[in-house]
């Protein structure tokens, strides 16, 4: 029982990142009194992320200065149900954030839209390839919302970020130089695309020679002075090379603090409490609705914050954890394949290709930005014929220049030893002559990849840890190999390239490991849909079981497309908020029949 009970508020919001602050902005302006509970500390882009102090690779990239403290909260991990899951004692494969702005301050700013077919994955593949095409072990499903429904919201978020790019499909007109596979856009990007370094330019030339359709990666690293629709001022990117894992003190990478928080913090309907660790969501006696949340306040006392509406805006994994420890929704059981909370956890299937240039190409890899890339989308989603390939899904191939920081960026050709004189020479000789290609692939959902509660370990608050059971599905291993081999062909076609090497994180026989960094794109676990037996929330992000609980973030994705999640999850957030404002709040009820 909570020690202290506060006066009721209209909306309580768990988490002060992109979705939480945006929910507060939109709902406060709709007349709702909003309380945001952020487990981390207050900070500001201007004072907390300024250079040169922020440009500290050791502190932020290796020691994870902006990331969550595993001593307080972590999860356990295993590859399959036959193993004992063990705690993730150290951060590695993914890096959830903490503090004002959440992981939104240390994203790379790659701002994507899903393909129309991504959002209707099951029905799309069945329509195109027949109902027998999708293997039985896959639990992929439609999102319950279409691209056309999301388009205005995806567009609005691009405006919030001052996104830089070049439209490939503007009002139905296909434009060379943009992504010709993308869904129809109602408007071009608000800012012009980024300048490209030599490595990315050579990649684009080679891709074009092979008949592909290269385009500049859409970027929330802003390219000119810009004011967003909330009135925030953004500045042009300096290509400083400290994006991912760092905050941007230049105000050049869109983040939730400058783009949203500064524009809402003084509003009468807005309040934020820091170091407020939410412990559980409380339910009404009949179990039909939530009554608010209990959190641990700064002084270590449990506080109950009653609210009419509860918004779950924590990082996707912790939204699922909060549901499980609060007994919200029916937990998924892989033995019976029933239940929904924790079902369809998915990740991202990543491979890398290294292209080494001769000395005529000087890449200056430290001149970079998180979303500085040239991309080929010809092998993403269902942009290519899957009929004879034996897998579904795909990924984009990008040549990127974003992290030439010298502790982590030590590209060496295949066969180079890991240490010693030969290693040292190879690091020196290749640092400035390397093209960095990534294959950023989709991740299908299966019956056996899921989240539940661990029976052994607890967090600092005495709650059972979240337990992750995950390995790469065979489908994604094949997909990763296929798309990676296309990337190798492009790399071999690049001018001045002397050698090419590649690694597929999901190669056959290689188990998913929690140790090396891959992506902070954990998806699923509280998925959306139109059927309450296979989704936690309806197509509006509203819980089927508790109509006054709305869920945000990548935990909603029924499977993970081959794109970075921030664009799609923010499109969904605006979609949900639109329905809350125009339909739900004036008449709270289930927005869909179960």
């Amino acid at each position: 029982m909570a020690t202290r009970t506060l006066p009721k508020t209209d909306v309580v919001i768990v988490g002060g990142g992109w979705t939480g602050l945006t929910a507060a902005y939109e709902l406060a302006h709709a007349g709702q009194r909003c309380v945001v509970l952020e487990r981390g500390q207050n900070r500001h882009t201007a004072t907390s992320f300024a250079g040169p102090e922020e440009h500290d690779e050791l502190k932020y990239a290796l020691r994870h200065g902006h990331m969550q403290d595993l001593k307080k909260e972590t999860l356990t991990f295993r590859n399959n149900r036959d193993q004992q899951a063990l705690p993730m004692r150290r951060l590695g494969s993914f890096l959830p954030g903490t503090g004002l702005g959440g992981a939104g301050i240390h994203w790379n700013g790659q701002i994507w839209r899903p393909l129309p077919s991504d959002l209707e994955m099951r029905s799309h593949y069945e329509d195109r390839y027949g109902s027998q095409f999708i293997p039985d072990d896959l639990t992929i499903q439609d999102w319950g919302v279409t691209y056309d429904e999301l388009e205005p919201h995806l567009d609005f978020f691009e405006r919030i970020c001052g996104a830089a790019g070049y439209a490939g499909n503007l009002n139905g007109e296909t434009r060379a130089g943009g992504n010709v596979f993308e869904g129809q856009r109602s408007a071009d990007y608000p800012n012009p695309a980024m300048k490209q370094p030599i490595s990315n330019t050579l990649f684009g030339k080679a891709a074009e020679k092979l008949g592909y359709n290269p385009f500049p990666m859409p970027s929330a690293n802003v390219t000119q002075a810009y004011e967003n629709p909330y009135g925030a001022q953004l500045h042009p990117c300096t290509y400083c090379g400290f994006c991912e894992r760092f905050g941007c003190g230049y105000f050049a990478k869109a983040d939730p603090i400058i783009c949203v928080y500064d524009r809402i913090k003084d509003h009468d309907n807005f309040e934020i409490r820091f170091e407020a660790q939410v412990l559980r969501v409380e339910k009404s006696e009949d179990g039909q609705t939530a009554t608010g949340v209990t959190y641990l306040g700064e002084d270590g006392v449990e506080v109950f914050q009653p609210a009419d509406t509860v918004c779950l805006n924590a990082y996707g994994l912790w939204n699922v954890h909060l549901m499980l420890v609060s007994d919200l929704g029916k937990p998924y059981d892989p033995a019976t394949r029933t239940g929904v909370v924790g079902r369809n956890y998915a990740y991202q299937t990543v491979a890398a290709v290294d292209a080494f240039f001769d000395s005529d190409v000087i890449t200056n890899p430290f001149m970079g930005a998180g979303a500085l890339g040239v991309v080929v989308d010809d092998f993403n989603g269902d942009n290519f014929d899957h009929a004879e390939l034996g897998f579904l899904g795909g990924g984009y191939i990008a040549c990127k220049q974003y992290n030439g920081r010298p502790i982590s960026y030590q590209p060496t050709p295949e066969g180079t030893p890991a240490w010693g004189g030969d290693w040292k020479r190879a690091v020196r000789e290749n640092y400035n002559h390397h093209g960095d290609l990534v294959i950023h692939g989709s991740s299908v959902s299966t019956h056996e990849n899921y989240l539940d509660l661990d029976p052994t370990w607890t967090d600092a608050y005495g709650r059972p840890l979240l337990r992750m059971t995950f390995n790469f599905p065979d489908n994604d291993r094949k997909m990763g190999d296929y798309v990676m081999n296309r990337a190798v062909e492009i790399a071999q076609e690049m001018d001045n390239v002397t050698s090419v090497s590649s690694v597929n994180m999901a190669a056959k026989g290689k188990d998913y490991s929690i140790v090396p960094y891959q992506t902070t794109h954990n998806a699923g676990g509280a998925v959306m849909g139109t059927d309450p037996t296979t989704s936690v929330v309806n197509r509006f992000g509203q819980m089927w079981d508790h109509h006054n609980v709305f869920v945000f973030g990548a935990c909603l994705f029924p499977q993970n497309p081959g794109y970075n999640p921030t664009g799609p999850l923010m499109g969904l957030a605006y979609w949900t908020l639109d329905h809350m404002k125009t339909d739900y709040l004036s008449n709270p009820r289930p927005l869909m029949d179960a």
Partner: protein
Amino acid sequence: MTLVYHSINGEISMHHRFSRRAVLLSMGGAALSASMPVRHAFAQMDAEPWAFLTDDEARWLAAIADIFIPEDDHPSASQAGVVDYIDMQLATGYGQGQGLYLQGPFPEGTPEQGWQLPVTPAELIRNGIAAAREETDLATLPDTDRLTWVEAFSKREDPIGDAPAQTFFGELLSLTKEGYFADPIYLGNHDYAGWRMVGFPGAHAYFTERVGDNAPTKQPPMGIAHGQLGHRAPRPISQEG
């Protein structure tokens, strides 16, 4: 007897200190060449205390770090201050287990499950060095035998004392590389040894006009505290016990 340390470019910025060692150091790089006998009655008292390491541990770390990153046209690991870096890392957050979930039990896991030891990195390294030195003291081996020993260590499956060999080896290699390339505020990368070697210009970074160029960068390295602190030189490490 030799000193692992020698000054780089003769630049020593310790003039504000008044110890016997500072006097020696102020004589410049030549005075500290590998052949010069500087060991004397006051050596132990002169040595600035390590934050965490013992002298024996420092010697052992210098020996292995200089196998990982040997001297060539560019300084070796210990010449670039990597042992000073490791000392500070083990004494502070990383070494002391900051952000490391250490709640038991501690069953053995798979490599994919990552760190499962009931100890902090500082404890792992202290215990590991002690156990390794009981087998063979790397620091006392001739150079060629050191390389052979480290090669065997890199492939070793049996634990060293309680320390799983591969975890222990991985931490040592990571720390050495970090110390060579991290900002000099962390005491390694002395005189920007690592940054000069690859051509990384550092923390002061504005490349809007240059990002598309295919041309070398002439900008000399500048760290976070460039010109403000006068980073101190690496501690001399006596190779005698």
